Structures are given as structure tokens and as C-alpha cells.
């Protein structure tokens, strides 16, 4: 493909070695991010979406975690081969990250101004005063009123939504090309969630950065993502654009996710939850990891592992349903 990618992740494997066995948190994930687009990574807790993000930043807690295989090409450079020092130059500068819980993600004992200017002074050769001016602009950009005075406040003097705005300001300090947002709205009130998503959309339009939006909320996906990767048990099960995901979902797991959203227009019915629990990643069985919970599972699903393949243009699925279909078609 002659397309210009900002980030290409190839066959990424991230493992955790625990006393009760090896956990394959990320198990052979492939995706790419184009400049300026928003990629959603969707999945339930433990599906490996956060670990995928931390792997890109090379911030997987180690030990026990480790990236064991794969490539993470950022503008063609493999991040996995970079030294810690080279990575520090990228983190917060070229690729930055915001986290789920703004209550705990800011350091409680430093002022917001200190934490904002610190990023600038690490990556840019600026004076303290220039950094403070820039920090004021940043707070203004993310919609914090009276930014100059607020710089002197500590995180506990801000509300949850405001803290997430501070986190966003901090992440944007050095005009990154890629912003990884790890469930940025999960810990917030619904009204504040909408404000933060609006803000991210607006900032993306103004600043032109790409976003990887990690979420378990398909509402967020519908709101902001261009393309979506669905993860389950460390594997990617479906990868397509937003419209196809909602209109013609292919993977039974995605069906399950979509069915578990309440719909306004239909009559009141009980929501269909996906039965069962996600598998224990330490003891994965042969075959498809979703087979135990899949309504369409066949005998072969428990024996043969599916492979990710393009079933329609721009629509990748990892499910035996389609592999067999293809076989019978041929």
C-alpha cells in the first residue's frame, strides 16, 4: 500500500509472566493509524486494549510485562528498537497519552502549572516564563476559565472534568502527532463525557493530530472514531470503519456488543448481554477464544484458531464463519 501511515503496528505480542502462567495480554495485533484520523479500540476489560496503548508508548510495566514480538513503526521507525532515552524524546512530545482516571493521573502535590510547564521544559528549549505563557494558552485552549490564576492551583482544587481538561492540555503541550486516549471519559459524568469528547473533536480539527481512542463504550465510537478495531482476549477480532461496524458487523462478538446497547426507537426489551465471562488469559484453550460464549460456535471453532482476513474491502474479521464461507465459495 502506498498510503502514508503515521503509525503501523505489526504482529504485536505483549506478555505478562505471572506465577500462575504467561498472560498473553496482546496477542498478534495489527493496525495502522493515518495522520489526522481517529482510530477506536473497543473491547471489554482485560481485552488488551490498554496494554496495546502502553506497548506503543513502551510503558508496559516491566517486570512482569514485556513486548515479546512485533513492530511498532512510527513514521517508519520501529519504536521497539528504540532505547529508553530515545523513547523519552517521543513520549509527551510526538506521541502523548491521556488516561482513564483524571482524579489519580495528576500528581497531587504539584500545581497544575508546574505539571504543564514541566512537559514543555523537558521537550522544548524554553524559559520558565515562556513555558508559563504557553501553559496559560493551553488551559485556555481546553476551555478552563481564568487560566492564568488556575495555573497556581493544585489538582484537588479542580473538578473531575476540569482535571481531564488539564490532562488533555498537558498531552497537547508539545503538539503531538498522535494522542492516545485511554478511556478518557469512563470516570466522568455523562454530561461531562460529552463535553470532553466535543473538546477532543474540536482540538483534533484545530491541531490535526491523530487519535487512538480506547474505549468500551460504543457510543464514544459512534461519536468520534473513523475506524474501529474490536479486541477480545488480546486478539483483534474485527477491524473496519465506523459505518460498517454499526451497519454490517461481522464478528459474533461485535454483534453481542451492539446488542447490549439500549435502543431508543425499539420497544422495551431486556438487553441481551453476552453470556459467560471473558476467558482466563493464562489458560487459553485451542481454537477461537470467543468460542465458549459465541452463539454461532461450531465444533471446529474449539479446535482451529481463526485468522484475521479481509472479508470485504476495508473490513477485516477473525472468525471461522467467514473462513469456511470463503472455502465453500472457492
Amino acid at each position, binding site marked *: 500500500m502506498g498510503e502514508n501511515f503515521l503509525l503501523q503496528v505489526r504482529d504485536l505480542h505483549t506478555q505478562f509472566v505471572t506465577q500462575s502462567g504467561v498472560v498473553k495480554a496482546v496477542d498478534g495485533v495489527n493496525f495502522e493509524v493515518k495522520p489526522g484520523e481517529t482510530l477506536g479500540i473497543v473491547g471489554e476489560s482485560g481485552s488488551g486494549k490498554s496494554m496495546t496503548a502502553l506497548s506503543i508508548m513502551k510503558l508496559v510495566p516491566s517486570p512482569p510485562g514485556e513486548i515479546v514480538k512485533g513492530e511498532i513503526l512510527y513514521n517508519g521507525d520501529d519504536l521497539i528498537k528504540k532505547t529508553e532515552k530515545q523513547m523519552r524524546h517521543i513520549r*509527551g512530545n510526538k506521541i502523548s497519552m491521556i488516561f482513564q482516571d483524571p482524579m489519580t493521573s495528576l500528581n497531587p502535590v504539584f500545581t497544575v502549572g508546574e505539571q504543564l510547564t514541566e512537559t514543555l521544559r523537558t521537550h522544548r528549549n524554553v524559559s520558565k516564563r515562556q513555558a508559563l505563557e504557553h501553559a496559560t494558552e493551553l488551559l485556555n485552549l481546553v476551555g478552563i476559565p481564568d487560566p492564568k490564576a488556575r495555573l497556581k492551583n493544585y489538582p484537588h482544587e479542580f473538578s473531575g472534568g476540569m482535571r481531564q481538561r488539564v490532562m488533555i492540555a498537558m498531552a497537547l503541550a508539545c503538539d503531538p502527532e498522535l494522542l492516545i486516549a485511554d478511556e478518557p471519559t469512563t470516570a466522568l459524568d455523562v454530561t461531562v463525557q460529552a463535553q470532553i469528547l466535543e473538546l477532543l473533536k474540536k482540538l483534533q480539527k484545530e491541531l490535526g493530530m491523530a487519535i487512538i481512542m480506547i474505549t468500551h463504550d460504543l457510543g464514544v465510537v459512534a461519536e468520534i472514531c473513523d475506524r474501529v478495531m474490536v479486541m477480545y482476549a488480546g486478539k483483534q477480532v474485527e477491524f473496519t470503519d465506523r459505518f460498517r461496524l454499526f451497519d454490517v458487523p461481522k464478528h459474533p462478538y461485535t454483534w453481542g456488543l451492539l446488542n447490549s446497547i439500549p435502543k431508543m426507537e425499539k420497544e422495551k426489551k431486556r438487553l441481551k448481554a453476552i453470556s459467560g465471562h471473558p476467558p482466563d488469559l493464562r489458560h487459553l484453550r485451542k481454537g477461537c477464544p470467543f468460542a465458549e460464549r459465541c452463539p454461532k460456535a461450531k465444533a471446529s471453532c474449539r479446535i482451529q484458531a481463526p485468522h484475521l482476513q479481509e472479508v470485504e474491502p476495508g473490513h477485516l474479521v477473525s472468525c471461522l464463519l467467514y473462513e469456511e464461507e470463503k472455502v465453500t465459495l472457492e
Partner: protein
Amino acid sequence: MINYIIRRLLLLIPVFIGVSILAFALLRLIPGDPAKSMLGNKATEAQLQSLRAELKLNDPLPVQYASYMKDVIKGDLGKSIKSHDSVIKEISTRLPATIELSLFALIIAIVIGVLAGIISAAKRSSWFDHLSMTGALFGVSMPIFWLGLMMIWLFSVTLHWLPPSGRLSVGTHLQTITNFYLVDSILTGNWFAFKDSLAHILMPGFALGTIPMAIIARMTRSSMLEVLNQDFIRTANAKGLAKYLVIFKHALKNAFLPVLTVIGFQFGFLLGGAVLTETIFSWPGVGRYVYQSILSRDYPVVQSTILIIAVMFVLINLITDILYKYFDPRIRYD
């Protein structure tokens, strides 16, 4: 903040009264005749009478206490029975010696303890971690008198590196200003005396600092380990900050609060509890003075020294509490 300090200082009054009652009672609770127990069996009736009169032992207890407190407030802490010098004068040379030794010990303990704790936490389960934590275990379990004697045997008797006792060598002249010898020798530019007093303080300083050092190291380690797992450390790393900034700035300031508590507590403890170290190294400080006074039943001295140490303990705690605010801005004092 100012209000808080004033309130805390006012709280000193009840503490002061409580401690003074205890110290006062100490003298009066001795079975039998306190005058006799102080002067010994060989004392004549006239001597006993004059001591009773001097200490007003014939008055009713409340009257005695009231007149004692009146003196204390005027700054008169009584006289030593042995030397007949005022306690204030006796303590004015000994207290700086004790404070100097305690501060020296504490600085060693903080520098080494905090550093060892940080490195142990940052490199958890490394050889350094195991070594320093085993060392800390030995440190807390080592009896000071044994450690002190071993140090004297090794560094003074065998190697002849350090003097075994005292604050200055005989024949070293030092013009005293503050009675902190290290400070005085710097103030007067007397480098010979500085080297000499440093050589004298090294061994007692280390001996006294061992236990606080071990406690501080363990406390720093566990507190750092907890903080290093926090989300904001991940944020700091995600910002691309250098590792030393993440550990020494972001983590340490958060982890320091419990360590500060221990330091404050240990400092108060050192000031009053350096008896063993001061005795072994013949350090002319308050601890040894109290110890000797107890042995020689010089109760006015014991009584007043207890009062002074208690007040200092409370003041150090107040300073610790005020310092909390620097390390954790979420703390409110109003």
C-alpha cells in the same frame, strides 16, 4: 496557617503543665524522705533540714508545685544538689552538645536512609534491595552499646583512626559561641578544631544514627513502592520525563510524608534518648547528664531536664506538622 501555629503553641501550655506535674511528682514520690535519699545516709540532720528548706519540702504539695512553677516561669530551673550550679547553666553547655550529636546522627540517617530506600524501591528485588534491607534489619536490631563498643575497638583501639571519647581533644582550643563545636569552629575559621570535632562526632553520630537510618530506609522503601504504582507516575513517564525526575521529584515528594513523620519522631527520640551513646562515647550531653543525675539522685536536675526535653519534643512535632503542608498541599490547617 498562622492561626494553626498559635493554636498549637497554646496547646503547649497543657502539655507543659502535665509534664511538669509528672516531673514534680517524680521527686516527691520517692519512698521515704526525699532529702535523705538525695544526700545519703551519712547526712547530718542540719544538712537535711537545710535541703528541705531549700526545696521547700516541708510545705504542702500544691504550695510546693506552685512555687516550683513560679520559678520555672521566671526561668529558674533550680540548682544541682551536687554542683550547686543552676540547672540552666549546666544544661546550656550540654544541650548544644546533644542537639549537635542528634542533628549529625539524623542527617547521616536521612541522607543514607532515604537514598537506600529510594534505590531499593526503584530497583526492587535487586541485589542492592536485598543488601540494604538486610542491613536495615541488622541496623534496627543492633544494640547501640554493643555497636558503640565495637566501633571504639575497631576504629580507636585497633586502627587508631578516631578518638574514642569526648567532643574535642585535650589541648585543642576553640572559642565557643553557640556551643555547637562544628559551627563554632567554622565561625571562627578554626579548621584544626573543625577537623578535631568532626573526628570526635563521627563514631557517636553513626552509632546513634543507625537505628533511625534503618527505620527511615525501610519506611522510604515501602512508601516509594506504593507511590511508584500510582497513576500519576505513569503520567509522568508518559510525558517523557527523565527517570531521575520521575523518582526524585514526582515520587519522592509524595512518598516523603510518612518518612517525615518518622524523622520528626526519631529526632525527638534522639534528643532525649541519646543516653547510651553519650555514656559510651563520654559525650558531654544532656543524656549522660540525666543518667548521672539519676545515679547520684540529683532530682532537681532530672526534674528540669525532663521538662526541657518534653518541650523540645513537642516543638519538633509542631515543626513536623507544619512541614507536612509543604509536602502535601491538600493538608488544611484551618
